[in-house]
């Protein structure tokens, strides 16, 4: 049976490889894909939308409907991860909290919910796995995280001038929070950005995107026809399309960032949001 499957797989691969020989050559200007709408985009993108990066104008303006549902797919992925993995049940044998005294390395264990907070006095909150104190990881995390976040914001804001945009910038912003959770602690990352805030943010991003689209409907345009936002923004319709794209990219970035963090928190802590990688 295994050999038969192998034969089928190889035959299928051979057929696929054979079919690629019929493809147009890479970069061929006469290939069917680049004959119908691509020349229009390449020629008129800058004068119609005032955005130098053609990819962004296609993704966020000409094909904005696709991108809206892609964002919804990301939102659904976060929602599914949350619904499948999240566990709210409190463990019966509450493990308590562990604090490490950094200068000496002594670990204190506080049992059953005693309300102590020693984090300002040379103590740090640690997981029950008692991982060793790692100065290099923590210092590098502290140094890197602000720059990663700044870069994420840069990527979102400059989506219309350079490669990148909402998706990439959102992933970079989410990666900064994931780095915080890895270098420090899942609890500390959870205190910085609350789970409920993340859930709301992931929906807010989709809402911003579809809200901008609906606003165009209210102003007697088509759905996601940003040119109709011109009187609202006080600029000419061409500039309004660029600004509408920026708004949409911000929405995408917010959703992607929060969904990445939601997925990481739920997978790394097996849905309990207490201890993780």
């Amino acid at each position: 049976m295994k050999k038969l499957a192998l034969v089928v797989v190889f035959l299928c691969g051979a057929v696929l490889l054979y079919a690629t020989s019929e493809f147009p050559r890479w970069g061929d200007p006469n290939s069917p894909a680049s004959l119908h709408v691509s020349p229009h985009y390449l020629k008129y993108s800058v004068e119609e939308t005032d955005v130098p990066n053609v990819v962004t104008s296609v993704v966020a303006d000409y094909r904005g409907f696709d991108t809206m549902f892609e964002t919804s797919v990301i939102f659904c992925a976060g929602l599914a991860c949350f619904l499948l993995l999240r566990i709210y049940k409190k463990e019966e044998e509450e493990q308590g909290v562990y604090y490490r005294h950094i200068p000496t390395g002594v670990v204190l264990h506080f049992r059953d919910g005693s309300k102590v907070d020693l984090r300002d006095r040379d103590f740090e909150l640690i997981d029950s796995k008692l991982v060793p104190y790692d100065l290099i990881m923590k210092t590098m995390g502290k140094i890197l995280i602000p720059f990663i976040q700044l870069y994420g914001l840069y990527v979102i804001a400059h989506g219309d001038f350079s490669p990148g945009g909402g998706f990439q910038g959102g992933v970079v912003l989410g990666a900064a929070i994931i780095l915080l959770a890895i270098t420090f602690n899942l609890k500390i990352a959870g205190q910085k950005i609350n789970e409920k805030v993340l859930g709301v943010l992931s929906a807010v991003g989709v809402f911003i995107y579809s809200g901008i689209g609906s606003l165009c409907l209210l102003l007697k345009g088509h759905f996601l026809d940003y040119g109709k936002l011109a009187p609202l923004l006080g600029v000419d319709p061409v500039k309004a399309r660029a600004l509408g794209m920026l708004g949409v990219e911000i929405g995408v970035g917010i959703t992607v960032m929060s969904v990445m963090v939601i997925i990481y928190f739920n997978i790394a802590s097996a849905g309990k949001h207490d201890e993780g990688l």
Partner: protein
Amino acid sequence: MHWSIDFIILLLIIICALGAISVKDLLGTAILFGAYSFMMCLLWAIMGAVDVAFTEATVGAGVSTVFFVAAIFRTTRRTKD
């Protein structure tokens, strides 16, 4: 020169892909998959699809590797087959 870089990257992609499906240690598979994504990112960049390369670098090589490692951390490191 351009041709040889293409060829080396393509070779590395195939090696990484074969390694990722044949290695028994799942943590090694996750790392190999990250390397595969990074090589794909270089290939996209060479072809001039910079946006796709950026997405591949952030999502494929960055965050999804972390997700795989987190999933391995919560399940098991050895494959059953």
